[in-house]
């Protein structure tokens, strides 16, 4: 087996062309995950009756499902039921107008909500209970305490875990190729179906992902320094 540099370069270009797809597969779920994940974490940490328990069960169970399998199931249901759903909601769209990248985004968002809620919950739990009491004692409401005291302290603790989540999402986004969404891996192997240089295609995909995650991690390092700036740390 010879490594063909020409084909590798072609795969690299094709893979990069689909970077925007991977970006939306990462950042949309990230935003959704951060929003709902934080809400779920707060609901669980502040032990909201019934909902807190339901969320705990949902997150624990859902985290057991591999993304590929969930994706396959959602895709099948999407293909079968989308037109009914659109008719029900009186949308003037049919499935042929829809890009199935949304199925991928949905599956990844569900996974992101769960894992981010766990990260945020861990960070919330790491904050001493006394901080809540301090907030209440100066007359803040629960919401105010959370917003002004708990969340600012939580962020530096949560960041390393969140970065892991982002890197995890970047990598997980590659499985959507199983339902025909073209992202980096599928993009990099498009020329391969003509040239049959699949190995070069996979190497190209690996290089792009690696570069992507290294950039994210180095940005994260800076962010960590920045958000930790006002935090007194005895060990630093």
């Amino acid at each position, binding site marked *: *087996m010879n490594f063909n540099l020409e084909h590798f370069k072609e795969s690299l270009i094709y893979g990069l062309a689909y970077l925007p797809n991977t970006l939306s597969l990462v950042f949309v779920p990230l935003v959704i995950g951060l929003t709902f994940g934080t809400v779920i974490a707060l609901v669980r940490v502040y032990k909201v009756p019934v909902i807190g328990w339901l969320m705990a069960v949902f997150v624990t169970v859902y985290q057991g499902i591999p993304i590929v399998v969930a994706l396959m199931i959602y895709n*099948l249901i999407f293909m079968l039921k989308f037109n009914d759903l659109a008719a029900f909601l009186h949308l003037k769209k049919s499935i042929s107008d829809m890009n199935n990248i949304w199925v991928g985004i949905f599956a990844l968002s569900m996974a992101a909500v769960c894992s981010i809620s766990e990260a945020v919950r861990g960070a919330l739990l790491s904050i001493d209970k006394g901080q809540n009491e301090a907030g209440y004692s100066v007359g803040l409401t629960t919401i105010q305490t959370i917003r002004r005291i708990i969340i600012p302290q939580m962020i530096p603790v949560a960041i390393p875990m969140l970065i892991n989540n982002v890197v995890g999402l970047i990598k997980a986004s590659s499985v959507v190729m199983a339902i025909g969404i073209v992202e980096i891996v599928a993009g990099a192997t498009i020329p391969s179906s003509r040239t049959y240089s699949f190995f070069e295609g996979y190497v190209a995909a690996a290089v792009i992902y690696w570069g992507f995650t290294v950039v994210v991690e180095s940005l994260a390092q800076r962010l960590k320094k920045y958000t930790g700036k006002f935090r007194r740390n005895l060990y630093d």
Partner: protein
Amino acid sequence: MGKLFVWDRFFENIPKILPYLSVTFSIVVYATLFGVLLGISIVLVQIKKIPVLVQIVKVYVSFMRGTPMLVQLMLVYYGIPALFDPVFGTNINREWGAVNFAYVTFILNQGAFLSAIFYSAITSISYGQTEAGLSVGLTEFQTFHRIVLPQMVKTAMPPFGSDLVGLFQNSSLVFLIGVTDIMGRAKTIGTATKHVLEAYVFIVLIYIIISLGVRLLFFRLNNKMSFGKEEMG
């Protein structure tokens, strides 16, 4: 199109899929056993700061953490024989089944991830602990064995548990290189019986049960290792 989900088909699939759990489990067992060994070796290299090796290990860990499992599977499946066979005069390219390459990929991947978990666990223990041990006359090995290691294991336990849950899930990708695990079997049942949803739903249940089992196990272990410390929050 007929019905999407039929319970009869669901139950028919169970005996067809269950035997393939052994494939999923063997991948996880191999990856964990050898992954722990590899992870420890990597941490040793990092802590002892062995020149050259440190840099190699850094690149290796970064690569394993920065690229998707799917791509790693392909690279190992096609790339490792191309690197090894000419050098060692072996012929693993043809003699090994796809499942062996799956083992190798998962061991390499787990080694990197576990090394990160072990490394942060070991560095989370302040050097004061070691000094304390040495000052009461323990040898270096005794200090490590009796003071540092137990604390390290406790810190590493929770991330190790979630890593294991993730490992079970990731093993579902091996069907892409032609290993028939429970996922691959579900897919091929879909081809042979024309209906795939029931098989998927069944393996989702299996994965959920496994993940709950692993979590419960680690929850128990974690409680056992509390060493009289009270849990916060």
